[in-house]
């Protein structure tokens, strides 16, 4: 099976034109997922645009200098990236320049003319990336992929967009911890929309642990409504405890369509099939191992 095809199908089945790939941490296979989806989108003849909320496709990790997977893009793909990281060779077609600032200079829009490894450095703000994605669509893209950071993706993605959550062995002390982390993240991102016909309490800004404690102490029965799921500043088991006691809801729900696993990390590895199965069971999502080209249904 081709993981890229399967992810693309899941995203587009709901009509999503933008696919956001977010990770539970560093080195959890986001670039591999983006590359897999991009390859298949191009193979299907879709006009594809890619950008990043941070830095993606670099040849080596900025922290430990270890080699990272490259993002080799096919001709026709559009990128929104910083001008200072655009490969000099082979030349790309420059579509437009912008004033949007990134960590590596201003953002430009380019079309890949010949296969090459690209680095993506996108605008760091939600408004900046929103504008970049809108511009990619103006250039005729039918599908965009955004390599994103969780905290900014929610401010950006709408219910019509699709989110893939990547997790892996990197940064996790044990498989159980990795599974717990991704499951809590998916539950948080999958917060349902509130029912305006029922009583609710609107939380301005973030729902913090302290604020949640006040609601649980007063046995609040009404819906607790935040703007979007990332405005809940409680993670892991603490989130689960709060979610069990309060009717947490949001105004702008997100659509998480799949999880991916990278069972081999820098510091250790998990048994691939067991890890994928555990993630699928804990998240309720179709889960893919991009290295093994395998899927576990939820």
């Amino acid at each position, binding site marked *: 099976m*081709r*993981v890229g095809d399967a992810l693309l199908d899941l995203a587009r089945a709901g009509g999503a034109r933008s696919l956001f790939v977010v990770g539970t941490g560093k080195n959890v296979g986001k670039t*591999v997922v983006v*590359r*897999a989806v991009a390859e298949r989108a191009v193979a299907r003849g879709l006009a594809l645009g890619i950008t990043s909320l941070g830095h993606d496709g670099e040849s080596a990790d900025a922290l430990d200098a270890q080699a990272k*997977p490259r993002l080799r893009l096919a001709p026709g793909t559009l990128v929104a990236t910083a*001008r200072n990281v*655009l490969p*000099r*060779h*082979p*030349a*790309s*077609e*420059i*579509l*437009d*320049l912008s004033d949007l600032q990134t960590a590596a200079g201003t953002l*430009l829009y380019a*079309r890949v*003319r*010949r*296969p090459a490894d690209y680095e993506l450095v996108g605008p760091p703000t939600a408004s900046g990336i929103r504008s970049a994605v809108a511009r990619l669509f103006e*250039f005729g893209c039918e599908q965009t992929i955004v390599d994103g950071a969780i905290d900014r993706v929610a401010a950006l993605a709408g219910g019509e967009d699709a989110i893939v959550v990547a997790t892996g062995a990197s940064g996790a002390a044990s498989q159980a911890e990795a599974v717990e982390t991704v499951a809590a993240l998916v539950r948080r991102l999958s917060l349902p929309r509130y029912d305006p016909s029922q009583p609710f309490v609107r939380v301005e800004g973030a729902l913090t642990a302290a604020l949640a404690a006040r609601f649980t102490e007063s046995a609040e029965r009404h819906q607790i409504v935040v703007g979007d799921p990332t405005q809940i500043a409680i993670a892991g088991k603490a989130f689960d405890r709060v979610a069990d006691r309060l009717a947490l809801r949001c105004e702008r729900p997100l659509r998480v369509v799949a999880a991916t696993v990278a*069972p*081999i990390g820098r510091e250790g*590895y998990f*048994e*691939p*099939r067991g890890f994928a199965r555990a993630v699928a069971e804990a998240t309720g999502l179709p889960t893919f*191992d*991009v*290295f*093994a*080209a395998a899927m576990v249904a939820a």
Partner: protein
Amino acid sequence: MRFSRLADAPTARALQLEWLQRALEPASEYGRRAFAELSPLRRGEEGAAAARSSRVAELARRLDGSRVEGLRATLRGMPDALQAIAGAAIGGVLTDAEFVEIQRLLDGASRMESLLGDAGDLLPALDDGLRSLGGALECGRTRTGGFYLADDFDRGLSAARARAAEAQREYDAVRERLVLRVAATLGREDLPGDEFVVMRDDLRGPLSAQIRVVREAPTYFLCELELDAATVEALCARDAAAEDVASAEEAVRARLSELVRARARELEVLAGSIGAIDVVVAQVRFAQRYACVAAEIAEEPVVAFQEARFLPLAAELEREGRSYEPISVDLHDVAVLTGPNMGGKSIALRTCGFIATLAAFGIPVPAARARVGLFEEIAWLGIGGEREAGGLLSSFAEEVVRLRDILARSAPRMLVLADEFARTTTPHEGKALVIALVGALRARRRTALLATHLAGIAEATGARHFAVRGMRGVPAAPPRGDLQAALALLAASMDYSIEELAEGGERPADAIALARLLGLDDDLIAAARSALER
């Protein structure tokens, strides 16, 4: 704009020069650079100030709004090419993004030429050298208006790319065959990527020689594809061809960069002209939007205007759907301004400073007519220019220290605007201080307007006395607590115009009527009236 050369920070705050800065903001980086360099004109440069102002006013008449907005849109779409030009000038090889910047500079200049039409003398015509540079870059223009180092630039580049494409196809085919062969040994259709996992349970025999194990775990191998000799050979050929493409592309860039280098001086001049036009276009837009006129620039230190508006307040009132009453003032000496609370005394002072600032920069002023001299400095004393709260000085002490500072300044021509100086001390001593201030300003030959509630200053000093006409009648008070209704009634009944009073003339302050209108307790109002009569 270098406002600081004309007005210090408290004065700039009082005159809301930040608002003015925003209202005159150019659209392009070239314009912003020129705008930052804009300095006020000094005594002796009256001709230049008048010429600048007249030119802007003339363009405001000749260019209609849509052409102005077209010019602004063109300017906004012009990225800053100066760094690219400088890079080429010192022999650097430019990037493709930099060629886009230069191409857009030339495109923008052409578009501006046609938009300016009969006002085209503002922009020097593109000479043959720049046109030929534009022609050389034209090969790179894509269907969508972008730029690509196209094959048409160089036959060598075209040939190198053809070879590279062939080498890439060859490598892809050889590698694909290898991948399929290796995948078949694993019982798979394909391999997922450069790295892949092989489960021990899935193995039917030993791993293929073309599989390199990167890491071994109890249940699986993490593997990479081991390229065979044919694939390595195809890879080497592909990389060599890619190197050739890189060299050919770099050669084209070097040749184009050399063309830019040869025209660097003309490009810099063009960028400078575009910056200057951007500044003028912003001023034209300002003049059109706010119905400004070119002031007559006088040789003497005068601020005289009819039907003038203090635009920051006018804009705020417009947003609230309220009207603005323009005022007329003729100030050429040290004069006193009195009038009721909320009658617009402070705004009259601000209008003087605002009009004088615009005239100093050669920008049309928001008035029906104006005659203004060039001042080296404008100084504000009083409400509106204060620093942030805090500090050891009382408001009176702070005011005195500021006055000491203003009086010590040596600018030959200064416009001083004093808003209720000494209002925080006793009326008796306050009046004495204001009388002394009139004398001190006269001795220093300043042009000044002093707004005050203290009576008898003009009479005591022989200064000209301006007064806000004030309330036309006392309206019925609105329901208590409805501040917005009270303010609307007040605005409707207030005559904000300014008249010059004959010697000894005074106008009522209307303070008690205002207090009633603003909802103060009836008993308190009655007591105040009784006290006033006594």
